[in-house]
């Protein structure tokens, strides 16, 4: 049973527009959420995170929103750039436990 779900396998966006990647989770014990970005033939790299005590965290063009009641988080990229094209993984952890990942969403930003 998947505890972290990314229901969109792929997303296509035009350069300059907003990219919104969604993630749902089922485990109410999760208290820390992360987004990782992965290019082909490379390992995932940390992008941005949010603690469950917050509902928004912003870092430059990247913003993560957390809706605890809906067990939903989203990553917004504004404006999107072709270099953002990658697979984005949502991950979660409960306390000091290990990371639980989703299946990933492939983002394609076209010029």
């Amino acid at each position, binding site marked *: 049973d*998947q505890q*972290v779900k990314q229901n969109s*396998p792929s997303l296509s966006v035009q350069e300059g527009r907003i990219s919104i990647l969604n993630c749902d989770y089922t485990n109410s014990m999760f208290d*820390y959420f992360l987004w*990782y970005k992965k290019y082909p*033939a*490379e*390992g*995932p*790299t*940390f992008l941005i*995170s949010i603690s469950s005590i917050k509902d928004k965290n912003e870092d430059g063009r990247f913003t993560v929103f957390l809706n605890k009641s809906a067990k939903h988080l989203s990553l917004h990229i504004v404006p999107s750039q072709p270099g953002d094209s990658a697979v984005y*993984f949502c*991950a979660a*952890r409960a306390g*000091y436990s*290990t*990371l*639980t*990942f*989703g*299946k*990933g969403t492939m983002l394609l930003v076209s010029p």
Partner: protein
Amino acid sequence: EAGVTQFPSHSVIEKGQTVTLRCDPISGHDNLYWYRRVMGKEIKFLLHFVKESKQDESGMPNNRFLAERTGGTYSTLKVQPAELEDSGVYFCASSQGGRSYNEQFFGPGTRLTVL
């Protein structure tokens, strides 16, 4: 500073053979993790070392998988004998010690294909 390195980058073996994957974490990182991603699926946790000790091996699929981290530096993951369903990308990650939300740095992965 060098990142997490993994060797080999690719491995193609036949069912029943043995394969050993190696991971060199970032120098000074006490925590070392192994993950696996089967094509199109989620990245799944396999196990976690703190220095040379196995902190959590709840994700290891079965006893055909053996992980070691002698001396608390590099780690190896041996699959013996390999089965078709073991195919996937094996990632290693490391993080600094201490009980905090330390960022995990991932290696590029080893793509294992079992024929």
